[in-house]
């Protein structure tokens, strides 16, 4: 038994017939081939699956694809606009905010959302914003610095792009 799930992801429309039980993370990865978002745990703790649904970050392992039908999604693949890296992406490069890269897409999506709502967050706000996501490599220090870099350079360059 299948249902139709039609979504817009990073500006592109998709429609697939899937089992209702299919988790959104697997829909993105396996049905749509968007493997930038990852699956790292069973209990909604690690955050490597974070994507945007209607411009809000969500742990996509904890939603059914069916719940996204008719909605707008954004994933890490959609951060770059017209060949230009988003300031959060640039910030992570400048400040060594990633090592193995597995938590990175989720961190980037949360960072982008944070800066969209709080363009000048202090360290405490940044740490709070990413506290639902785990990194085993960086000890969080450079992730915080990367997001600060993006905050400072977004204001210099003008506001970041809105959602795709």
């Amino acid at each position, binding site marked *: 038994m299948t249902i139709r799930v039609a979504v817009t992801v990073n500006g592109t429309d998709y429609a697939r017939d899937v089992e209702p*039980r299919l988790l959104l993370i*697997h829909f993105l990865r396996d049905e749509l081939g968007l493997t930038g978002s990852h699956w790292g745990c069973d209990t909604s*703790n690690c955050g490597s699956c974070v994507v945007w649904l209607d411009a809000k*970050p969500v742990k996509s392992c*904890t*939603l059914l694809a*069916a*719940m996204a039908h008719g909605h707008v999604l954004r994933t890490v693949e959609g951060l770059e606009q017209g060949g230009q890296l988003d300031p959060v992406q640039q910030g992570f490069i400048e400040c060594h905010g990633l090592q193995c890269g597995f938590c990175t897409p989720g961190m980037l999506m949360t960072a982008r959302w944070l800066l969209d709502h709080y363009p000048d967050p202090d360290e405490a706000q940044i740490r709070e914003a990413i506290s639902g*996501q785990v990194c085993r490599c960086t000890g969080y220090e450079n992730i915080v610095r990367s997001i600060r870099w993006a905050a400072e350079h977004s204001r210099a360059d003008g506001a970041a792009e809105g959602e795709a």
Partner: protein
Amino acid sequence: MLSMQVPSQVEYERATSVEHALSLLTRPETRILAGGHSLIPMMKLRLAQPEVLVDINGLTELAYIRLDDGQLRIGALARHADLLDSAVAGQLYPILHDAERVVADPIVRLWGTVGGSLCQADPSEDLSAVFAATRAIAVIRGLGGNRMIPVREFHLGPYETVIGPGELLAEVRIPVQPGTGSAYEKVSRRVGDWSIAAAGAVLRLDQNQKIASAGIGLTAVGAEHFVAAQAEDFLLGRAADEESFAAAGAIAAEGCHPVVDQRGPEDYKRHLVAELTTRALRRAALRVTLEA
């Protein structure tokens, strides 16, 4: 712990109205899907295997937080983040903000709903104790109309509520009275973990600064209906001072039934109940003074 990590097969319906949802909910083995952040993890573990899911996320008429006629009314579909962001909720009942700040994590709070958390009825659910402390009323809607059940009678046991087939939780409402202060104190092993124990206190003082009413909610320690009833009774008429609070804490600790688990042994959990009840009462009293 050895589970399948993906849900078993299920049917899916999208509710177009509250009435539509209610009619779907008359079927057996049918569950509401709101934020999904309690239910879907259970389905992944295959501890929950509903036959049909009714997605009510489109029913935005159930998502509100407002002050109405002396009552703080919270729609069941209000997200945790909405409650944390609500200025009116935070002013009237700071206990709500204290608790929401430490429920899950910032991303889960964007999706999990107040109603979903209450209906999941986990013994460690912070909002259950909070609404019990505030003596909130659950508004349950059925096809025949609404019924009001005090939150203190809402839970029948772990993962079990009074909601029957063809019903859904529509709203939680808290009476607002002047001279009230409230607070929530939680200890967990790590940010986002369930409480080892938590205590919420709501105090109303009379003109003589004596306790006119006290609500004490306890999380994760097997308190009946999440309430420290004897501690509440003890406080009535007493001065809002350290001695009363410490005594109330001790009574609360005696009256609960903590389970020994990896969060802690029994003696520690009871100690924590006493300590956190005292701290919550202290802060609640302070907030009354500030408000006056």
